[in-house]
């Protein structure tokens, strides 16, 4: 068997034959649908990126607040530990 099949055809395609396949209004409708889909996809992706950005901002600020609180706790605890600690004996 060959790599391709070759046929000889007698039928000649004429513009009248092809008229039934020519449909420009349908093509324009499909194009409009494609544009709407692309716009919707773009809006979705932008909003997704925006949500991710806002979420990361919230996460960072929460993390920073927690870090500040921990530092404050440590500051509050450190004077007590200094009071409680036994001074080292000097030789």
């Amino acid at each position, binding site marked *: 068997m060959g790599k*391709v099949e*070759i*046929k000889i055809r007698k039928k000649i395609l004429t513009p009248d034959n092809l008229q039934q396949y020519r449909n420009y209004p349908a093509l324009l409708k499909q*194009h409009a649908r494609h544009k709407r889909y692309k716009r919707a996809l773009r809006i979705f992706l932008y909003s997704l990126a925006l949500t991710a950005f806002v979420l990361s901002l919230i996460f960072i600020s929460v993390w920073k607040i927690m870090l500040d609180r921990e530092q404050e706790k440590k500051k509050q605890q450190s004077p007590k530990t200094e009071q409680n600690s036994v001074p080292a004996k000097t030789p």
Partner: protein
Amino acid sequence: MSEQEIREEYSILEKSRTNPDAFGLLYKKYFDRIFSFIYRQIDDEDVAGDLCSQTFLSALNNAGKFTFRGVPVSAWFYKIAANEVNRYYRKRKRAKTFSLEEGIVRTLYEQANDGWDEEMIERLLGYLAELPAEMLEVLNLRFFEDKDFKEIAFILDITESGAKMRTYRALDSLRKNFKLKIKYDGKG
């Protein structure tokens, strides 16, 4: 096609980015040629109709991406159509079909020989069937679509010298086997 005509078509394509109705001119002008190009490689009118519509839809959807490279806009349509045909065959996983118009084969054969010889034509078809698909693609574009090597190179994504080489090789073996007198620029 002159440089000015190419630029005019390119400006129509540019217009169609904002006004899709403008694309109608190119659709009207090239629909039949693209349909024939696809039909020759599919041999099914309905499928060819679908692929042809898909070709023009892709062109319209991607009109903004086309950049001027000195080839007619039609070469870009042929490129999209060739990709659509290849995708069709990849999906179906079957051997490619070429259905050649008897009239064109007869003309090509008769311009190189004295008359139409059925037996020789049968042998010729058998021989063509054994050629690699990429060589047939070049022959198809060169002799059935009358494309120059610059356009063939653009359509098949190869270099111009590569397109010439493929055509030369295919025709050289045809000349040796069938004593055809066709020159590789398409003249007898």
